[in-house]
């Protein structure tokens, strides 16, 4: 749960940031999916969302970040900020769409300005959180970037 003296839209989405950090820091994709699912479920438990809503979106965010990490240098601060800002905005839109699907009577309209502020806050905090998580994983020997590259060797000569 968030602090009750500051509206949640001004706070970065810590769950999303952890998922993105896991996507670039964790070696095992299955482990990452499991981590994202559990984190999403925990978020559902303490928020007003239906159980499963954040779980689903968290796994989707993990998949997106994992694919993006193969094409972009998400270890750089600027690309990370831009990517997370877009991802947070997409996350909000996806949540609205999911709400329209599962709770059709509720208003699923997401306020654009709120979504932008939240996306910006998440983007700004992303490099810091990512760096922290990657360092932590690195100290545990889990950093994807530190993985030893195995090269197939072939005996030379006759």
């Amino acid at each position, binding site marked *: *749960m*968030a*602090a*009750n*003296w500051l*509206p*949640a*839209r001004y*706070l970065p*989405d*810590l*769950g999303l940031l952890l998922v993105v950090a896991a996507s670039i820091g964790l070696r095992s*994709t*299955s482990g990452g*999916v*499991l981590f994202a*699912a559990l984190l*999403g*479920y*925990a*978020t*559902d*438990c*303490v*928020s*007003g*969302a*239906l*159980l*499963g*809503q*954040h*779980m*689903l979106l968290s*796994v989707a965010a993990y*998949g997106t970040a994992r694919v993006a990490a193969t094409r972009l240098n998400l270890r750089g601060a600027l690309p990370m900020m831009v990517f997370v800002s877009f991802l947070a905005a997409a996350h*909000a839109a996806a*949540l*609205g769409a999911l*709400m329209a699907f*599962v*709770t059709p*009577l*509720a*208003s*699923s*309209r*997401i*306020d654009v300005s*709120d979504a932008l502020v*939240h996306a910006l806050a998440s983007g700004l905090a992303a490099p810091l959180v990512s760096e922290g998580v990657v360092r932590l994983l690195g100290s545990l020997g889990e950093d994807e970037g530190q993985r030893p590259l195995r090269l197939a060797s072939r005996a030379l000569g006759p």
Partner: protein
Amino acid sequence: MPEFSGRVRLALLVTLVIALATVSMVMDQRALRGGGREMPAWAGLLLDAAVPVQKAMALPVDLLRAAWNDYLFLVDVRQENDTLRRQLLEVREENLQLREALVASGRLARIAEMRDEFEVPMLPAELVASDVSPWFRSVLLDRGRGDSVRSGMPVVSEEGLVGLVTATSRGASKTMLLLDRQAAIDGTIQRSRTRGTVRGRGGEELGFEFVAREGDVRLGDVVITSGLDGVFPKGLRVGRVAAVEPAGPGLLQVAALDPAVDFGRLEQAFVMLRRGPTMELLYRSGDAAPAAPAEELAP
């Protein structure tokens, strides 16, 4: 080959997670329509753990705020005190006149009867955290099943209606605020008795949907609960009409309401320890809310 089996395993895991999430959402949606749910043990542990963590995290800010309010902000207190005393005298005078009028019309006895009828034991609770997601409007209260709080119980403050308890653990409960997009209650305009549905919009204001042709809704009108939804007792303040949106081609017209409760400053609320008839009907099988211990009840 190992790479192939790894991919299959991943695909199976993702499918399993998606299936679990979907089933979970559908079941939770059904439970929420029934007024709420008691959280499973593992999820309840999370809620219980969140209360002391949040209180510890909020401590420095609370101390700073207390220092500001108790010392630095006292500069204007004398002036404010004088104004409040004057207002109190005016209100007392007005109150006396109103009582006289009521006695004269013979309605006082009826109102006293109604008060006895609707008197509900209330449990004070502290708001320890607001929702982690900006797209949902719920709060965490530091009272749970151990304090006789059950899903489906209304939460109020001295200003008006706050929301509904939607999930409980042993020492905490989750309350969906009126502002949440999923919140909808039956309301009435106090002046004209126009009925409608109050819906949360996810932001800081509420929407009041009423039948356009029959509705008599004006700026400043006070909206109260009608009690007809069987969830909230009749007569709780919900909000005040801030704008009436122009009628469209449809049957319904919408008015924007300013909530009676200042949710941004809400720190303490009261859980009404009795569910409405609809909630009681939904929960009749199994989970009947026990009577609250007398020493914990506020009048």
